[in-house]
């Protein structure tokens, strides 16, 4: 019951106020900069650019922690794999594990890239209404229509997913309870034990998809062709400034990557 979708936290900060397209592009540039940063330290410094955004967005520090907690193990594994598997100058050895200078640097770099990208994506989700996000994505992909990219359909799929996740979660919970009432335990790792949950959920999802397709058709939907949108998006000066900063970040890391900085 009462499933709250996503991590969108409504607010009135200047980050909330930015055009979703600016934020999407910003995220893209930020990710590019993280990839271009050539060392652990530059990647960390590049990544730190998200910190003022978090402050401006009025998000609590605990916000970052909550996003990362489920991924902690994954991050630790990435770090140690890089540290352990990179050959080079040995600076320490713990048992059979040899830590190299290069390994440590790669480890930090990989960690910084994944860590900050997740944080930035969470900030985007937290400060942008999912609908606006889908709208923004549609507009950004619109030029692709000429090359056969179904941008309207993609955006619609995204909104439909947003619309139906809570409904299907509620349904999953109800079906699970119904099977528990029939003595199911859902214990053990065998897929077989999950069938009483998975099959009804699939059937229901298909039935819903069918009903939905029919309902959309009945409301004169015929694909993206001829479809207009109620919501309009406008770039404001703040959006240009934000994008300029993001581009500068890419330029900075590119500068280092090309070897001018070291």
């Amino acid at each position, binding site marked *: 019951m009462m499933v709250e*979708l996503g991590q969108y936290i409504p607010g009135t900060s200047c980050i909330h106020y930015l055009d979703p397209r600016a934020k999407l592009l910003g995220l893209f540039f930020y990710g590019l900069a993280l990839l271009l940063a050539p060392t652990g330290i530059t990647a960390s410094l590049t990544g730190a650019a998200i910190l003022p955004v978090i402050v401006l967005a009025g998000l609590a520090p605990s916000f970052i922690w909550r996003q990362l907690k489920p991924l902690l193990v994954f991050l630790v594994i990435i770090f140690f794999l890089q540290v352990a598997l990179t050959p080079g100058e040995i600076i320490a050895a713990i048992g059979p594990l040899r830590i190299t200078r290069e390994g440590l640097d790669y480890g930090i770099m990989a960690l910084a890239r994944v860590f900050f990208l997740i944080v930035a994506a969470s900030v985007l989700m937290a400060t942008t209404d*999912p*609908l606006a996000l889908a709208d923004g994505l549609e507009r950004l992909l619109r030029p692709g229509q000429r090359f056969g990219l179904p941008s309207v359909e993609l955006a*619609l799929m995204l*909104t*439909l997913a*947003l*619309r139906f996740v*809570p*409904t299907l979660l*509620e349904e999953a919970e109800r079906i699970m309870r119904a099977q528990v009432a029939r003595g199911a335990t859902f214990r053990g790792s065998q897929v077989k034990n999950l069938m009483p949950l998975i099959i009804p959920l699939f059937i229901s999802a298909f*039935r*819903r998809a069918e*009903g*939905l397709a*029919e*309902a*959309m*058709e*009945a*409301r*004169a*939907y*015929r694909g993206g062709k*001829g*479809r*207009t*949108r*109620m*919501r*309009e998006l406008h770039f404001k000066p703040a959006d240009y400034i934000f994008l300029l900063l993001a581009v500068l970040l890419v330029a900075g890391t590119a500068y280092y990557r090309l070897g001018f900085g070291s």
Partner: protein
Amino acid sequence: MIEVQGVTFFYPGTREPALENISLTIRPGEFLAITGPNGSGKSTLARLLNGLLRPGKGRVLVDGLDTADAASLVEIRRRVGMVFQDPDNQLVAATVEDDVAFGPENLGLPPAAVRQRVAAALEAVELADLKTRPPHRLSGGQKQRLALAGVLAMEPVYLVLDEATAMLDPVGREEVLKKVLALRREKGLAVILITHFMEEAALAERMLVLNEGRIILSGPPADVLQQEEGLAKAGLKAPAIVALGKSLRQAGVKLPASIVTVEEMARALWKLASGK
């Protein structure tokens, strides 16, 4: 006017027709109820009216437009709005107002016009206060009123309700039905109510009873609901008020046979009692 002319319909891979040789005319502004047991073809008939299904034999014309003509389908669907049974399967957007906008957007209206229609439709179903709410946080009755708003925003001429109240509680059902009837009065919409609640069908001007793909009874509810045998054949029973009326008439009480609702019965009995 919607004209259903000699329509027979088979679902792919079946040998029994879902509908057989149905002819029917629906006038603008009319209130028609269609009843029958599950599998009688009610929902199939509904889907033929707006071109979701095309007849195998015969024709369906909506204000002269043939549903078999693909070029007319958008206009047909604008004219014939449809509210389905399951509230959760027909709401497509993540907020109330975006959902209402879906139809007008598909019609290709400019953003300002879409906004205006959305506002008017939400006003009409009294959901304007909840326009930014996600649909899954609405009650059943509210969800169906939202679905209704989505249809109204396309400014239809005919409104088809395909068991739109079947999943609601009695309060939700009354809430939706009252709204539909008010809209009919205000906007002159034709209402085609598909239901297996006899109490609801009794409110219509004309009712049809379908069984095994054929129309077995048709006429004003006051007449149709007297036909116990025909109703029983379709697994249906007259509403309690009609049954009571019949029983009282048999006991010699002089009640007109046209009484089908609680209010009509109360009024008639009161008149009888005070007439003495």
